[in-house]
């Protein structure tokens, strides 16, 4: 079975600074997807960034980037120039291939990030 571990239950960062959220996973699969989702106080789950395991290049979406270390099974999220709107719970998630087969999407327990003005 796949597991996703987020070892930082809570983090804080000063506005405009950079913060890195950690995520590790355990799998015997070679092909899979990894995701970071954001859940702001509204509790709407929003996809932040996605990484395909067969791609060595780290995914980037504006101020959000990942450090994907496949051998170490690590998938950290870096938020640059933190903004107050980044305050949210962040979930790391793993999906093994083939996708969309029901229960093969695994979430971590989340990291609560607070951006301090």
């Amino acid at each position, binding site marked *: 079975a796949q597991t996703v571990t987020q070892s930082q239950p809570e983090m804080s960062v000063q506005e405009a600074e950079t913060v890195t959220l950690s995520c590790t996973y355990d799998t015997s699969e070679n092909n899979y*997807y990894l*995701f970071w*989702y954001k859940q702001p106080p*509204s*509790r*709407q*789950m*929003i*996809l932040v960034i*996605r990484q*395909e395991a067969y791609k060595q290049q780290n995914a980037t979406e504006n101020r959000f980037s990942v450090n994907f270390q496949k051998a170490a099974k690590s998938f950290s999220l870096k938020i640059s120039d933190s903004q107050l709107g980044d305050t949210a719970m962040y*979930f790391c*998630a793993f*999906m093994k*291939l*083939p*996708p*969309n*087969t*029901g*229960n093969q*999407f695994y*979430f*971590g*327990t*989340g990291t609560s990030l607070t951006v301090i003005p």
Partner: protein
Amino acid sequence: SQTIHQWPATLVQPVGSPLSLECTVEGTSNPNLYWYRQAAGRGLQLLFYSVGIGQISSEVPQNLSASRPQDRQFILSSKKLLLSDSGFYLCAWSPPPTGPFYGYTFGSGTRLTVV
């Protein structure tokens, strides 16, 4: 474009009363559909998923049930609510397995309080 609607947004129900939460998806066909529950300050727990009309898989034994009467409609039900059913319920969808996978798209959620 595809959209997902989930209602109601908030619900307060007495113990022992029935429950019906509805989720519909627009702009796609044959989506995979999911119901998740999130307790306060906790992660997401998969309750049910469906890969087609009338096809429901349950992940957690409990007094909840799910149904998919139409291709893009997913309903979460209970005949008698328990206090432990309180939580935040999220519906999600993903496209059928053709092409790249871009993750789940979630509804806006239902906050259920059982009193």
